[in-house]
């Protein structure tokens, strides 16, 4: 979704409207803005502040005693909670493990679609599938692919005479790679579209000039395509990292964090803490830590954009 914000500035912005002269935005502007601003404040900014406050309390579900302020106790517990740091590590592994291969695959596809090939419409049509599907369905679908007995993956392995295959989603060593493949598949279209937009911004003349000078394809990519693509690539990568770090539905359906917590992403962990064990305060503290980490990522992303020159 945030693709939008990424590719937005990399494209020529429409001409600025001429003066505010007689257009219908005068003193009445606030009246137009409030209907959207109020719900945002009440249901988005408000809960956020409330959530941060909760992190410093012992709030639990279904308890009769009043909630108490306990200072930084939740955070002190959290620092020593090895399960949380395990899930944090898995979250990072997952975020990087999905984002990097996905970027490379999407870049390849975007470069292909930037050529005049005959099957481009097919790629366009098929790209809708991962993009439009509910995440829950994506998870279910890949469960069917991975199913040890009735799944197409093991059947293909058997057909190729490579043994019996295995139970991918339950194996301690295969579960995380298996869900990472699904993550790569699910987010590829958005990344491809963003990169394709960046590609279509590179002036053709540059390419032609480069090939006149006898530059090969690889050389052209390095000195013409990549510099133009860099800001978009950086932005989409940063956003994908954040996005994937926050994943929930996909892995909930595929493995529910199993086997033995090997795919328990931070969001799954916090969800269980809050809504299975009712530890609201503790889960809110987790949320705060995750927000802090993501804020750092965001800051890096924004600084990167500023350095990207005029694309900032």
């Amino acid at each position, binding site marked *: 979704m945030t693709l939008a914000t990424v590719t937005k500035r990399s494209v020529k912005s429409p001409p600025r409207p001429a003066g505010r002269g007689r257009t*219908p935005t005068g003193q009445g*502007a606030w009246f137009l803005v409030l209907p959207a*601003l109020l719900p945002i404040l009440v*249901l*988005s900014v408000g809960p956020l502040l409330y959530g941060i406050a*909760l992190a410093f309390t012992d709030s639990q579900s279904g308890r009769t005693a009043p909630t108490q302020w306990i200072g930084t106790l939740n955070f002190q517990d959290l620092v020593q909670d090895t399960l949380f740091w395990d899930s944090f590590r898995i979250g990072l592994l997952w975020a990087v493990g999905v984002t990097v291969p996905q970027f490379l695959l999407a870049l*390849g596809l975007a470069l292909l679609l930037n050529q005049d090939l005959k099957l481009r419409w097919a790629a366009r049509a098929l*790209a809708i599938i991962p993009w439009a599907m509910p995440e829950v369905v994506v998870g279910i*679908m890949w469960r069917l692919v991975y199913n040890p007995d009735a799944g197409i993956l093991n059947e293909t392995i058997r057909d190729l005479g490579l043994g019996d295959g295995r139970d991918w989603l339950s194996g301690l060593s295969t579960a995380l790679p298996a869900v990472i493949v699904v993550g790569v598949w699910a987010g590829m279209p958005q990344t491809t579209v963003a990169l394709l937009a960046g590609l279509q911004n590179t002036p053709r003349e540059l390419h032609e000039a480069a090939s006149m000078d006898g530059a090969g394809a690889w050389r052209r990519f390095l000195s013409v395509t990549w510099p133009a693509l860099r800001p978009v690539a950086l932005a989409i990568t940063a956003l994908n990292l954040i996005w994937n770090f926050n994943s929930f539905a996909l892995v909930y359906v595929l493995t529910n964090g199993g086997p033995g917590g090997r795919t328990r992403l931070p969001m799954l962990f916090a969800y269980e803490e809050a809504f299975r064990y009712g530890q609201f305060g503790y889960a809110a503290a987790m949320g705060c830590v995750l927000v802090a980490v*993501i804020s750092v990522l965001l800051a890096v992303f924004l600084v990167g954009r500023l350095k990207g020159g005029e694309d900032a």
Partner: protein
Amino acid sequence: MKTPKRARAGQYVALLAYLVFLAFPFLWLISTAFKPPRELASLHPTWIPRNPTLANFRQAFDEQPLLHAALNSLLAALGAALIAVLIATPMAYVMARRRTLLARAATGWVVVSQAFPFVLVIIPLFLVLKHLRLINSVPGLIMVYVVWALPFALWMLVGYVRAVPVELEEAAAVDGAGRARTLVSVTAPLLAPGIVATALFAFITAWNEFFFALVLLKTPQKQTLPVVLTHFIGAEGVADLGPLAAAAFLATLPSLVVFAVIQRRITGGMLTGAVKS
């Protein structure tokens, strides 16, 4: 630019590999949905069902309240889409026409809001909705979805508003049309396609959403389709794969259809922030 033949062939091979990768899981889902139990249990599953059947679909409806869930999903998605567009359009208009600090702040917030661990927001939301007696109700879910869909809706709409030449509005004003009159008879008709596209996008986002629905809806009568779908999972007997696939396939159809309709607009909107007709 001429591409040599061999390179071109290589490009087609690569493209085909991509097409297979993108399509095969979905083809497998469809195949599983139409297979009779005996074929699902066989040790050599095939791509094409030998005796295609609709039994899985019937069984899926028997096992879970799918129709009811679809209705809940429809209500939640329609409600969210309509309200989001209704309140976002005026704000987007102001943001597009006056490049003020507000517009900048809103754009920044669009980025930031997408990046938040929802878990930090969901706990307070849960408590607030509980207090308002809106837990386990579709209206409560709609409220959450509206706010959740707003950033992107605003963003899309700002692009559409900018595509409406400000000169047209100025001309109408010169001709003596009042402010309201100008908005209704000049701006609104030109914005309509963009508003529809934005509403459809918000609809799909809500139709597909899982996390908030999982937390906020407790009883099967109130749950939306994605949540009900997860009830098929668990008792992972091979016999249940068929109904699971059938239900998942049905739940996806609306998303695919709507998305196919608005895809050009979304990518167009994303790439240029303006409508390309």
